[in-house]
């Protein structure tokens, strides 16, 4: 059975596959670091259950956690470290889109180059935190 996948499709799939495996493995490793207490968390493990019952805005106020990309400056804490693979998995699509653009340009597939560039901009805007943070 021959695959009818296009060149860009296979490239996208290969990057997605490697990234997904790295991301999921990192997710497990960082969670073990967190759960085993190898790195102490910013919010003590036993206290988290007091926060997940409340709206996110109350959680942020009461816990003193800053939303957005603030976790990046707190990677020494076990819980904040977990955001690294989560963010990586959420960035994978942008990486895949960037990777297929040269192939689309070579084929002079202008419409899809434009669509891919707009999608990248949309995802970067979403990831940037420009659209507000802090819940209700």
């Amino acid at each position, binding site marked *: 059975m*021959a*695959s*009818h*996948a*296009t060149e*860009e*499709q296979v490239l*996208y*799939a290969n990057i*997605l596959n490697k*990234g*997904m495996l790295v991301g*999921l493995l990192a*997710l*497990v490793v*960082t*969670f073990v670091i*967190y*759960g085993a207490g190898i790195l102490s968390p910013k919010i003590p*493990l*036993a206290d*988290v*259950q*007091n926060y*997940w*019952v*409340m*709206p*996110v805005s109350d*959680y*942020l106020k009461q816990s003193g956690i800053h*939303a957005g*990309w603030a976790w990046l400056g707190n990677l020494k804490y076990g*819980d904040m470290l*977990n*955001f690294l693979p*989560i*963010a990586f*998995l*959420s960035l*994978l*699509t*942008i990486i895949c889109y960037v990777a*297929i653009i040269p192939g689309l340009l070579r084929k002079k597939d202008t*419409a*899809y180059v434009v*669509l891919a560039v*707009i*999608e990248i901009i*949309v*995802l970067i805007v*979403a*990831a940037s*935190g420009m*659209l*507000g*943070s*802090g*819940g*209700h």
Partner: protein
Amino acid sequence: MLEKVLRVSKILLPVFILTVLIAGAAHVYAAHPPEPTAPAEHAWWFWPLILLILSFVLGVFAVMAGVGGGVLYVPIVSGFLPFHLDFVRGAGLIVALAGALAAGPGLLRKGMADLRLAIPMALIASSCAIVGAMIGLALPTNVVQTLLGATILGIVAIMLKAKKSEFPNVPQPDALSQSLRIMGVYYEPTIKKDVQWQIHRTPIGLGLFVFIGVMAGMFGLGAGWANVPVLNLVLGAPIKISVATSKFLLSITDTSAAWIYLNNGAVLPLMVVPSVIGIMLGSFVGVKVLAITKPSLIRIMVIVVLGIAGVKALLKGLGIG
């Protein structure tokens, strides 16, 4: 010509109308929400372990029922476990995203998920998912919970009523799909030959992805339940291409919405990681179990459970349950 469009719209649009009407009732209740109950004291690992086990079970059933994990996860976890809906939606999106990322590469390589079909739809859906996520995080919890309940009941109706078309008849592709060259060929093992496909009604399909994106972002649901009927019945893509492209599409739609929840603090690793691991392990087991069970029976069970979760979410949102 528009029969199939109308068929899908007849199911999707009442869901929206119903949710808007019920939202009004929920607003009234919003002024007098109940006092939050004090959380039970448990060891830190108790609820994550429950989440791991429940997500595993949901993963098994999701595969067997042919639905995404997110659509089961959000109503069941928010309805029956003590987590706030904000965090459940954040976790639900990451769960759906992880599942889509895991399935995506294989589906793309086999040519089942089609990049040219997915890219235009994904752009609309992911942009609208951002709007949906922002609306979802801005609205009072009970309103979102009520809307979620109504939506889940709508999904139950779609699962009961929506037809499938193995190889839809697309006599003439529309101008937009022709200019974007959205067409393809895939190998169909059941008839042992290559199947050529093309699509029509692309502008209508793109319009429907506006609603799909908003709902996916607002409720943290994967949107396979809506993607597949639109790709298959409206656009006319073969069912296998529709299912595979829908799964891949979620990896893009859910990414944009996930970022909004992540940037708003609505993602807790202690909930997300056990859920992702549980649902992925469950999916692997589900694929094995699928071979020795009757999928139709499982599908009925899942519809019943989803119906109960929808009613529970609706009552919870209205302050009755």
